[in-house]
C-alpha cells in the first residue's frame, strides 16, 4: 500500500504486470502519465509512434509475436478516435491489448471540451471491455482487471479511459487480489464427456480432416505442440485458416495448405468431401465456408472454441466443445492414445489417395517469367532466402497478403502477423515495428503492397528512431491489386479508381526517412537484392516491381461452394462462373 498519484499508479500497474514496452503518442490529456513515465526513468520503455493507429497495430504485432498483452498510451479526442481502427482489428483477431486513453477532467466530461470525445461510447463495440475511471480508488483495480480481461478467455482489446484530474489525484496503490466482475468466468476446460465423444467420432471416421485456426495460436505454444502430436498420432490431414498458419508446419506431408477463398484445391476439396470435420479454434468465417448451404454437406462437425458465441453462429455443428484449445487437445490426445483397437491406417488410404489427386492439380502453379517479376515468385524467393533464419512475417491486406499466405511456408506459430478479420490495410508496417521491438535480433519482414503501405508509411520513421531494422518488402503492382482483380473478374474490367496515378519513389522515400531503399525490377536481380535487404542493418524499403496484371488463384468466387473453385488457367471463364447474386457480395 503506497500513496501515489493516478499517473504514477498507471506506471506502477504496468510494471507490476511485467510490461516492458508501451506504444504511444502524448497529448494534453495524458501529460501527467507522460510525466510519470519520464520521472520513473522509463521503468516501462515508451515507443513514440507517428500516428495512434500505428501504436495499436505495433502493440498487436508485439502481442502476437510474444503471446503477451500489448500496451498503448494515447491522448483524449483524436488520440482515442485514431486508435479505433486498431482496436477493431484487435477485436476481430482476438489480440490481447490494454489501451490507456487520456480524457478531459471529470468536471468537463459532456461539455464538448477541447479534445473531448465519448471514448467509452465510441470504443464500446470495438473492445472486449472498456472503463471510464471516475474515482481514483478504482484505478488500481481497473488497471489490473483490464490485463486479466484482455488476456483471459478469448483475448481482446480493453480500453481504460482516465480523466486528467484522476491522473493528478492521490490515492493508495496496491495490487488487487480479486476482481469486481464476478460474472466473468471464461470456461477453459472442455466437457470431458464431449471430448470422449469427439474421440469416438474420430476413431469411426473414414475421411477425417482437421480444420484449425487462430485459436490454436492464441492458446499458446503448447497448443501448437499438442496439435502436432495429435495430427501425427491420428494420421489425419490438416488445413488451417489464414489466422492459424504456423500452428502446424507447412513442410509436413499431412499439411494441405490454407483453406478458404484463396485456399488450395486440396484443402477446399477435402473440406467439401470429408465425413468428419474437427474444427479447432476457428470460427467458420464467410471467407472459409463460401456458400453456406453447400458447405461440407456430408460431414459431421466437431467445433472446439473458447467462445460459446462462435459455436453454431454460421454453421450448425454436431458436437460443440467449449474450452481452451490446449486443454481440449491435451485431453483428446490422451484419449486417442487409449483408443483400442486403433483404427487401421489402411482405413484412410482411399481418403489420402483422393487428396493426392487433388494435390496433383498443383493449384498454386503460376507461369513464371524471365522479364517481369511474378509476385508469387518474389514470395517464393523471399521464403527460400529467409527460411533458415529467425524470421517473422507481417503483411498488409490484399493480393500480396494472400500470396504470402500461400507461398511463405510457415513452420512455427507466432511468426505470422496479418490482419485477418478486419482486413486493415496499413497493418503490416506498424505491426513489424512491434514485432522487431520484441525480437531485436530477429529478421522481421512486412510483406506489403504499395497501396496498403502508404496508409501507415510514416511509421518507418518510428523504426528509424528506435533502430528497428524492419524490412518493408513491397510487391509493387501500381494497383490496389485485390480491388483490381475483383474489377477484372466481376465488373467487366472497369478499373474504377484502383490505379495509383502518382506513386512515390520508394527508394528516395526510404532515404528521406534515413532508411535504406532498394528497387528491383528484374527477376534475375531478385536474389541478390533480397540478400542485400537482409544484410543491411537498418530499416529497408524494398520496392519490388511486379507484374501488374497477375491475379491471385485459386479463388472461390462469391456465392460459390468449395467444390466450385477457380484456378489460374480458368481465368477466362470466371465471369460466367459468378452469379448476379454473387456480384452483390464482397
Amino acid at each position, binding site marked *: 500500500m503506497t500513496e501515489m498519484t493516478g499517473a504514477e499508479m498507471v506506471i506502477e500497474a504496468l510494471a507490476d504486470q511485467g510490461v516492458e514496452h508501451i506504444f504511444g503518442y502524448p497529448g494534453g490529456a495524458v501529460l501527467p502519465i507522460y510525466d510519470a513515465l519520464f520521472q520513473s526513468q522509463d521503468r516501462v520503455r515508451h515507443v513514440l509512434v507517428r500516428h495512434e493507429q500505428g501504436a495499436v497495430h505495433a502493440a498487436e504485432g508485439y502481442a502476437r509475436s510474444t503471446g503477451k498483452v500489448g500496451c498503448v498510451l494515447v491522448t483524449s479526442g483524436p488520440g482515442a478516435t485514431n486508435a479505433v481502427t486498431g482496436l477493431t482489428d484487435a477485436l476481430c483477431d482476438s489480440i490481447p491489448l490494454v489501451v490507456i486513453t487520456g480524457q478531459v477532467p471529470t468536471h468537463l466530461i459532456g461539455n464538448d471540451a477541447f479534445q473531448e470525445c465519448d471514448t*467509452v*461510447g465510441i470504443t*464500446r*463495440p470495438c473492445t*472486449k*471491455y472498456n472503463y*471510464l475511471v471516475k474515482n481514483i480508488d478504482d484505478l488500481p483495480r481497473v488497471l489490473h482487471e483490464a490485463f486479466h*480481461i484482455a488476456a483471459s478467455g*478469448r483475448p481482446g482489446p480493453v480500453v481504460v479511459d482516465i480523466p486528467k484530474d484522476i491522473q493528478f489525484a492521490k490515492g493508495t496503490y496496491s495490487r488487487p487480489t480479486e476482481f*469486481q*466482475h*464476478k*460474472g*466473468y468466468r471464461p470456461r477453459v476446460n472442455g466437457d470431458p464427456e464431449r471430448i470422449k465423444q469427439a474421440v469416438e467420432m474420430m476413431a469411426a471416421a473414414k475421411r477425417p480432416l482437421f480444420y484449425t485456426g487462430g485459436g490454436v495460436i492464441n492458446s499458446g505454444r503448447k497448443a501448437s505442440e499438442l496439435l502436432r502430436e495429435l495430427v501425427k498420432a491420428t494420421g489425419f490431414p490438416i488445413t488451417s485458416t489464414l489466422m492459424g498458419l504456423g500452428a502446424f508446419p507447412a513442410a509436413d506431408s499431412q499439411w494441405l495448405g490454407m483453406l478458404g477463398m484463396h485456399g488450395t484445391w486440396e484443402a477446399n476439396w477435402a473440406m467439401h468431401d470429408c465425413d468428419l470435420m474437427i474444427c479447432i479454434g476457428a470460427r467458420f468465417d*464467410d*471467407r472459409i*465456408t*463460401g*456458400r*453456406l*448451404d453447400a458447405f461440407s454437406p456430408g460431414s459431421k462437425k466437431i467445433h472446439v472454441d473458447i*467462445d*460459446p*458465441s462462435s*459455436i*453454431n*453462429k*454460421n454453421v*450448425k455443428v454436431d458436437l460443440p466443445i467449449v474450452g481452451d484449445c490446449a486443454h481440449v487437445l491435451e485431453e483428446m490426445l490422451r484419449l486417442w492414445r487409449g483408443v483400442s483397437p486403433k483404427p487401421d491406417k489402411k482405413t484412410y488410404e482411399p481418403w489420402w489417395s483422393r487428396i493426392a489427386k487433388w494435390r496433383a492439380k498443383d493449384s498454386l502453379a503460376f507461369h513464371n517469367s524471365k522479364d517481369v517479376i511474378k509476385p508469387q515468385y518474389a514470395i517464393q524467393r523471399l521464403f527460400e532466402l529467409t527460411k533458415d533464419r529467425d524470421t517473422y512475417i507481417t503483411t498488409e491486406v490484399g493480393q500480396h497478403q494472400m500470396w504470402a499466405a500461400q507461398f511463405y511456408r510457415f513452420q512455427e506459430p507466432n511468426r505470422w502477423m496479418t490482419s485477418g478479420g478486419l482486413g486493415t490495410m496499413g497493418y503490416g508496417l506498424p505491426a513489424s515495428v512491434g514485432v522487431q521491438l520484441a525480437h531485436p535480433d530477429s529478421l522481421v519482414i512486412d510483406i506489403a503492397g504499395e497501396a496498403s503501405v502508404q496508409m501507415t508509411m510514416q511509421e518507418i520513421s518510428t523504426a528509424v528512431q528506435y533502430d528497428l531494422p524492419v524490412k518493408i518488402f513491397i510487391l509493387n503492382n501500381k494497383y490496389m491489386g485485390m480491388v483490381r482483380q475483383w474489377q477484372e473478374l466481376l465488373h467487366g474490367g472497369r478499373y474504377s479508381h484502383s490505379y495509383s496515378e502518382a506513386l512515390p519513389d520508394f527508394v528516395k522515400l526510404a532515404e528521406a526517412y534515413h532508411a535504406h531503399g532498394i528497387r528491383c525490377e528484374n527477376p534475375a536481380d531478385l536474389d541478390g537484392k533480397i540478400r542485400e535487404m537482409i544484410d543491411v542493418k537498418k530499416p529497408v524499403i524494398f520496392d519490388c516491381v511486379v507484374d501488374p496484371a497477375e491475379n491471385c488463384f485459386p479463388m472461390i468466387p*462469391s*456465392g*460459390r461452394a468449395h467444390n466450385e473453385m477457380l484456378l489460374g488457367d480458368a481465368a477466362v471463364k470466371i465471369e460466367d462462373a459468378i*452469379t448476379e*447474386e*454473387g456480384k452483390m*457480395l464482397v
Partner: protein
Amino acid sequence: MNTATTHYPAAAASERIEIRTLCVLVDNEPGVLARVIGLFSGRGYNIDSLTVSETEHEKHLSRITIVTRGTPMVIEQIKNQLDRLVPVHRVIDLTTGGPAIARELAMVKVRGKGDHRMEALRLADAFRARVIDATTESFVFEITGSSDKIESFINLMLPVGLVEVSRTGVVAIGRGPEGM
C-alpha cells in the same frame, strides 16, 4: 431462385421465428445498458420490449428483461453474445427454461363524455383496470397483465376515446420456489 448463395449466414426468413423472454442479470455499472442495447442494434437483433431496474442493491445487480424474436439459431446467438459481455452474470431463457409468468403494466388515457365515458368504465371493470386519475371528461386507467390482455384493452379503448398509452414493457419471473 438461389437466394441463399452468399458468403454470409443464410437468410433466416425461411426459418421459424420464435418469441423469447430473456432475463439478464448484470452488474449495475455505468454503460451496462448501452452494452446490451448496442449488442442488439450492432448485430441486427430485435427488441420487442426491454425493462431494467436494480433488483439487488447491496450487490449492485440489475435485472434486464428482454423480449426478442428470431430463428432458434439467432436466439442461441443472442444468449451466447449476452453471456460473454463482461458485466453479465447470467442469461435465463424464461420461455424455454420451465414455467414462468410475464406481466406488463400500462397506463391508458381516454377522453370522452356521456355513453363513451360509461362504456370506458364498464370495459375497465371487465379488464380489472383501475382508475388512477379522473376529470369530468377523462380517465387514466392502470392495467396489469399479459401483453395480449393489455393489447386487447387498448384496442377496446380506441372507439371510446383513446388518447395516450404508456407501457412498462414485460417483466417476468419463473414459477416455483427456486430463484434464477
